[in-house]
């Protein structure tokens, strides 16, 4: 590899100092891969190595041996004989080693083979016509051609030559007849097979008969092409021929004649105590090569016959091959060892290899790792560092007048302390406020490593606020975390601004808040804000002090109850928490529906439904108005993570990160202290069911068991009503599973209803801090159905799950239903079933982590270099455009406020504006005025600043608002003009009017916020997208099936499905086409269409297929069963059957062999002679029932499904049921074309097929939809922009590229990146054969080279004008024209 270096000349100064040319700062611009010839190796080397020894008896490295001092010092006691450097500063020098006979380089063996396939084995010219050669050369020399295309072209040339050569090809130039070239089996070599070359063969055969020795069948025509022959052929190749074969250099370099012996520095020799030394694997390999080489040399000298040396030569070949790649195939059995010494390829490849282990990821200093523990008294941005750790880690601080006193603390190293002055650098210990990076593995998204401020604390653990557990996914059951200390001011600043906790409260996955209150904080908030918590002056003041350590200013609100005693409520405490004093300008406005919200309907006005909202009897409707908690008991929906309308989200969007983190800090302190005093614990009495509850549960279970038994009875009698697309057993399973799952749910409901409100598990489940109703139900009432693989417990014994049950038992208890609770205890069989379910869970998690990890890695590798440019386009490192505008609107997903990724939540914003901007006597606007102002304002803000979609959404929002107001005003106007109407109008305005000021403020806020939400140029949006898709994968359960409308039709879901989509798989496990019907409200019509699509075999519609033999004729007569055909609404008659038989490829019958007797009968006369006719007839009779007479071959089956979405509507409006077809199998084109199908609305989940039939844009949409569907099925929301980017990357080349090693290769990536991904050695060898030139521009390459990458803050380049600015002339100006 040569490094192109910038060189600058400089004037030479004459001094006594040795001359060192100053070439200015050097930068690696590109890497060129090439091969070294034998002479180049000799030139580069300092010494010839010929002795296979290391040290002499007195431990001095032997000259000419493998540790020759000219290649660098072997240990600390020696010096280098070339550069006289010591062990630590000699870079090392090469040696060389001459082989007695040339051998193949295994890395290039496939290339050598390809070349040999293409050249004449006599004259070394290409086996192509001159004209064809020129054509190929022209294509190869096209400068616009990418490396990948060139490789493809080369492959096609090889294919062309080898298909010709499969017979025997005559060289167009010399006329020599070439045979087939192939790799030798079991040995490292290449065979030239000329056995098909007929003419010469006879000559050989006759020659063989004359020889005495070879009685055995020696195949003379096939001979091994030995490296000497090949080298000879290669040397004679012309340069243009090499170019056609995409060889950048002479092909003889592919064959080894001299081996470069690497410097000792890369194969260190460790001296053990005693006289033993421990040598590196490479050194030992070289030793063996030298030994083999020496014996081969000996053989060559001794024996005159050339072929005697063959054995030694082969061994040498194997040794050299293993030196390069110890896993090479074709090593003779005698030389195979259990653990081979590793070769060079082994050093590079794999997770621990040079590329992934040392170049892409490096070990670092200034780090710490220990166990973590919680500390609610810390701020969310802080991390407590143990004193001991802080005394080891340092930060180099430059001394100035301002910090010299701080730096000079302590009484140690007085001498140094006296000399210390401004400008010195002191490596001081960590102190409070230092910037540290904090990380927990697995680092699945960027929030897994964040920047905190240090707090030096006693004891031995790293501590942080529990609110920050979520992004790290940490708990305190023994987790350890890592800490890094940035060492420069630049690094600190960048870390603080980009990675600071306060700047990463939101996840870019979907814009939801991630750092939020958890567990105890939620529980105590829930209890504090209960409607019946009242505090007197002392208690309330104390709690106000809790949240700020008594150091903050607090304005005490007026008590809610003034008389008979002053009492404050818990809700008032929260008002204080959010806005402690009047000078704090935080006005939060939000509404959240908590879990406990009853959502009771009070009345309907028109089509608008008025819900109970704040007056909810359970107090589940949270309403903050101007930072006052009006109503609602706070729980996870308000304070927790994963919500976009929660308190913290609103605070963050409206008042910034500082206000949010302050609020979280106060809540953490308050909660921790409050709950410490209040006490919160769980005991056995919490899970003891009351009498009525256990009665209720017993009744519930026995009732449902009864229903199950009835169903089982029906099934046994064959009376069960079948579900669509299911057989009886499947229907029974579906029905019973449904009933049993309902038992657990009902039991859960019963628990939640009957437990007293003070019950700890109930409180935790209600506020969302831990546990679900199902968990409570399992402890208190009933554990429920155990499932293995999505089914009830399978039969481990003959026809039964366990020998405790009768054979073929289908009862709930026999198939894994656990009726007991954890409190009451499980019976033996129940316990066994429970462990079955438990094991599946364990296996699942173990498999899942590996699977998703690999998926994430592939995603990252494919997307790592995508970034936003200053023109808002998304490009890869090479500048190739992937998207013209990121996500079609250029918005940052992390800042999206709307539920499904819209930039703003207008409803909430309007509420906020109305509340914070009081009407204060201003006039309310009429609907017409509103629309006028809106239009004016929108025009003023214009299009240049925002997308059309945003403007439209704003317009639409106002239309809805206006409609509402319009209606209200109308009612008032209808009444007429009197005193009362005036009052009514006033009231109406107050309820739903808007003033001009409010409207103005609203629109202005919309636009100003929209502008801030733009994604910044330089954002590594690819990596963010990859993490956003990869991270949720870890949370998905592996094997889940989801029923597509029909019970029996399941679609692969979860990780396997995501994997399929991302891989761009050509065959997917459950392809389903969702076909819309042209006439979708008629079930019969749907049946007809179903009949057309589903394949019908002749056997299904034939009444009989008989062999008829008369004295003159023998034939087969087929009679069709017209009744069945009519029942199934098929239109099949004898003619159609005839056509389909003729078209069936395996049955070789022609039109004239089949005779249609009438519309239901046909006769077949097979065209064979009479002797064989009997057999023919019988074989035909066996094949005929399998002939497809109607339908699409590739379709497995078709199910008619009711439309899910419209089911609700159907119920309400009494409309007809709507149907569609679900087609299992492939064949999208055929299904779309089927009569009665609306092809425009038909969809498939098979991406590859969609691309084939509908094109690349359809495939892109399909990818987006499918990922979205899969994620949604697991209750995960991912911003659409990430999926768009992934889909665009997969399709931007015009074909669907999977995120696999094959797809990524085609994505215009550099050699180093591909080498650091997979197949390291292959990519490197190919790159050097093709002479690839790698510009260092991608992320992987920059990391490997240690260069800042052109991404994020690195996107900026400073350019300085080099030329001296022109002298300015004053006085008379230059004439414009002279």
């Amino acid at each position, binding site marked *: 590899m040569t490094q192109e270096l910038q060189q600058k000349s400089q004037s030479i100064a004459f001094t006594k100092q040795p001359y060192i040319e100053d070439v200015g700062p050097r930068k690696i611009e590109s890497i060129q891969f090439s091969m070294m010839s034998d002479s180049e190796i000799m030139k580069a080397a300092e010494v010839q190595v010929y002795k296979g020894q290391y040290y002499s008896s007195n431990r001095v490295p032997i000259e000419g041996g493998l540790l020759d001092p000219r290649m660098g010092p072997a240990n600390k006691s020696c010096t280098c004989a070339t550069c006289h450097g010591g062990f630590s500063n000699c870079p090392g020098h090469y040696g060389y080693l001459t082989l007695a006979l040339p051998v193949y380089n295994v890395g290039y063996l496939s290339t050598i083979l390809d070349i040999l396939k293409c050249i004449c084995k006599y004259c070394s010219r290409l086996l192509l016509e001159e004209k064809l050669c020129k054509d190929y050369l022209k294509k190869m020399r096209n400068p616009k051609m990418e490396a990948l295309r060139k490789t493809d072209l080369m492959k096609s040339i090889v294919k062309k030559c080898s298909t010709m050569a499969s017979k025997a090809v005559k060289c167009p130039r010399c006329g020599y007849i070439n045979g087939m070239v192939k790799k030798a089996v079991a040995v490292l070599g290449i065979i030239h097979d000329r056995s098909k070359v007929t003419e010469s063969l006879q000559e050989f055969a006759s020659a063989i008969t004359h020889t005495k020795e070879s009685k055995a069948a020696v195949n003379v025509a096939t001979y091994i092409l030995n490296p000497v022959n090949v080298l000879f052929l290669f040397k004679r190749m012309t340069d243009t021929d090499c170019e056609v074969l995409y060889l950048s250099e002479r092909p003889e370099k592919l064959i080894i004649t001299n081996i470069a012996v690497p410097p000792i520095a890369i194969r260190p020799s460790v001296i053990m105590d005693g006289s033993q030394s421990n040598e590196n694997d490479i050194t030992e390999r070289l030793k063996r090569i030298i030994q083999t080489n020496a014996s081969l040399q000996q053989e060559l000298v001794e024996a005159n016959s050339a072929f005697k040396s063959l054995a030694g030569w082969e061994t040498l070949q194997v040794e050299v091959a293993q030196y390069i790649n110890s896993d090479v195939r074709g090593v003779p059995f005698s030389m195979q060892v259990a653990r081979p010494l590793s070769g060079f390829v082994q050093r590079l490849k794999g997770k621990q290899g040079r590329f992934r282990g040392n170049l892409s990821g490096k070990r670092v200093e200034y780090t710490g790792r220990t166990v973590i523990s919680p500390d609610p008294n810390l701020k969310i941005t802080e991390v407590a560092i143990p004193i001991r750790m802080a005394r080891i880690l340092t930060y180099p601080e430059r001394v100035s007048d301002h910090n010299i006193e701080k730096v000079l603390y302590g009484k140690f190293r007085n001498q140094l302390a006296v000399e210390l002055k401004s400008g010195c650098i002191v490596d001081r210990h960590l102190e409070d406020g230092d910037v540290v990076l904090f990380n927990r593995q697995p680092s699945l998204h960027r929030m897994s490593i964040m920047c905190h401020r240090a707090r030096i604390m006693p004891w031995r653990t790293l501590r942080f606020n529990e609110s920050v557990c979520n992004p790290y996914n940490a708990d305190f059951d023994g987790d350890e975390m890592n800490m890094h200390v940035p060492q420069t001011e630049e690094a600190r600043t960048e870390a603080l601004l980009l990675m600071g906790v306060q700047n990463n409260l939101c996840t870019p996955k979907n814009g939801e808040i991630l750092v939020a209150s958890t567990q105890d904080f939620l529980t105590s908030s829930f209890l504090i804000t209960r409607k*019946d918590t009242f505090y007197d002056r002392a208690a309330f003041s104390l709690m106000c002090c809790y949240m700020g350590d008594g150091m903050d200013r607090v304005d005490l609100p007026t008590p809610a109850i003034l008389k008979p005693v002053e009492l404050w409520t818990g809700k008032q405490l929260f008002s204080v928490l959010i806005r402690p004093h009047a000078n704090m300008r935080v006005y939060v406005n939000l509404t959240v529906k908590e879990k406990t919200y009853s959502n009771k309907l009070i009345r309907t006005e028109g089509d608008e439904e008025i819900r109970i909202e704040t*007056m909810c009897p359970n107090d589940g409707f949270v*309403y903050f108005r101007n930072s006052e908690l009006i109503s609602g008991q706070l729980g996870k929906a308000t304070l927790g993570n994963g919500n976009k309308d929660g308190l913290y989200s609103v605070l963050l969007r409206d008042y910034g990160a500082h206000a949010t983190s302050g609020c979280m800090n106060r809540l953490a302190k308050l909660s921790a202290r409050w709950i410490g005093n209040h006490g919160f614990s769980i005991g056995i009495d919490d899970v003891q069911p009351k009498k009525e509850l256990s009665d209720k549960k017993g009744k519930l279970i026995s009732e449902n068991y009864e229903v199950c038994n009835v169903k089982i009875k029906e099934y046994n009698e064959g009376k069960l009503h079948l579900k669509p697309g299911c057989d009886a057993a499947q229907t029974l399973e579906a029905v019973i599973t449904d009933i049993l799952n309902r038992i657990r749910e009902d039991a859960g409901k019963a628990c939640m209803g009957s437990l007293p409100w003070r019950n700890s598990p109930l409180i935790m489940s209600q506020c969302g801090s831990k546990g679900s109703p199902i968990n409570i139900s399992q402890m208190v009432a009933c554990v429920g159905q155990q499932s293995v693989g999505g089914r009830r417990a399978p039969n481990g014994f003959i026809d039964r799950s366990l020998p405790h049950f009768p054979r073929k038992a289908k009862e709930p208890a026999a198939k894994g239903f656990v009726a007991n609770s954890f409190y009451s205890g499980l019976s033996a069989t129940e316990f066994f079933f429970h462990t079955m379910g438990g094991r599946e869970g364990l296996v699942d998690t173990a498999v899942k982590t590996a699977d998703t990890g690999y998926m994430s890695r592939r995603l990252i590798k494919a997307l790592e270099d995508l970034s936003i440019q200053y023109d808002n386009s998304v490009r890869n490192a090479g500048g190739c455009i992937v998207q013209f505008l990121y996500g079609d609107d250029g918005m940052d997903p992390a800042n999206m406020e709307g539920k499904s990724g819209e930039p703003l939540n207008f409803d909430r914003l309007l509420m906020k504006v109305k509340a914070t901007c009081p009407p204060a006597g201003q006039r309310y606007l009429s609907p017409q005025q509103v629309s006028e102002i809106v239009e004016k304002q929108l025009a003023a803000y214009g299009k240049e600043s925002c997308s059309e979609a945003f403007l439209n959404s704003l317009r639409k929002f106002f239309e809805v608002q206006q409609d509402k107001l319009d209606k209200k005003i109308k009612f008032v106007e209808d009444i007429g003009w009197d005193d009362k109407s005036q009052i009514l109008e006033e*009231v109406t305005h107050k309820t739903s009017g808007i003033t001009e000021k409010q409207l103005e403020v609203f629109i202005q806020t919309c636009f100003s916020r929209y502008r801030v939400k733009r994604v910044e140029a330089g954002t590594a949006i690819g990596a963010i997208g990859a993490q956003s898709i990869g991270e949720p994968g870890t949370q998905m359960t592996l094997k889940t099936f989801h029923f597509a409308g029909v019970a029996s039709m399941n679609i692969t879901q979860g990780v396997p499905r995501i994997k399929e989509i991302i891989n761009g798989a050509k065959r997917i496990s459950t392809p389903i086409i969702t076909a819309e019907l042209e006439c979708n409200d008629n079930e019969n019509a749907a049946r007809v269409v179903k009949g057309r699509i589903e394949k019908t075999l002749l056997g299904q519609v034939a009444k009989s297929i008989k062999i008829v033999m008369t004295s003159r004729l023998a034939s087969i007569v087929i009679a069709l069963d017209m009744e069945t055909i009519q029942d199934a609404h098929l239109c099949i008659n004898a003619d159609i059957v005839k056509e389909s038989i003729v078209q069936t490829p395996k049955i070789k019958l022609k039109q004239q062999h089949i005779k249609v007797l009438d519309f239901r009968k046909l006769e077949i006369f097979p065209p064979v002679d009479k002797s064989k006719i009997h057999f023919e007839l019988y074989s035909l009779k066996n094949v005929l029932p399998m002939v497809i007479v109607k339908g699409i071959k590739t379709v497995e089956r078709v199910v008619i499904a009711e439309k899910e979405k419209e089911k609700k509507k159907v119920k309400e409006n009494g409309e007809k049921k709507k149907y569609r077809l679900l087609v299992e199998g492939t064949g999208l084109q055929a299904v779309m074309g089927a009569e009665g199908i609306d092809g425009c609305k038909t969809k498939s989940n098979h991406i590859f097929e969609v691309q084939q039939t509908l094109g690349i844009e359809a495939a892109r949409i399909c990818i987006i939809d499918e990922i979205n569907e899969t994620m949604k099925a697991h209750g995960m929301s991912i911003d659409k922009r990430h999926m768009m980017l992934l889909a665009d990357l997969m399709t931007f080349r015009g074909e669907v590229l999977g995120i696999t090693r094959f797809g990524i290769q085609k994505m215009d990536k550099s050699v180093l990146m591909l080498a650091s991904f997979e197949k390291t050695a292959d990519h490197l060898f190919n790159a050097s054969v093709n002479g690839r030139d790698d510009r260092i521009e991608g992320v992987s390459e920059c990391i490997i080279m240690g260069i800042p990458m052109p991404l994020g803050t690195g996107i900026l380049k400073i350019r300085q004008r080099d030329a001296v600015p022109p002298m300015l002339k004053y006085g008379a100006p230059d004439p414009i024209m002279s």
Partner: protein
Amino acid sequence: MSNIVLFEDIFVVEKIDPDGKKFDKVSRIEAHSQNCDMYMLLDVNSELYPMRVGDKFTMALAHTLNLDGTPDTGYYTPGARKTLADKYEYIMHGKLFKIGDEGSGKSLKAEIYVSYGGLLMMLKGDPSYVSHFELDQRLFLLMRKL
């Protein structure tokens, strides 16, 4: 006096906890007024001020407790001054957070919602009694059993 008190009437308790008892110390009462035909839902601290069905009480809403009509400062200043509070047994302080309406045309009824630190009140009736209330107004609720 009348400019201090924004609304006053005599109510009769009709129901207590219409949706079942949810909280230990707070009950929701449903009451109807005698003069203005107002309907009221109110959360009352039942520990301090127990109420039973059929109880008759007078309820007033005032924007200040100062008898001279000086507006409330928003800061709580207890003292031994003479105030409106002296005449009542149970006083709460809160904020009007919503004005709503029900029905349409002549039968339109207005409703105001007040939150006394989480204890909610809903007062529904003829718009004329409601129209002079403003959003975000601080209100004192004064109650005395008759």
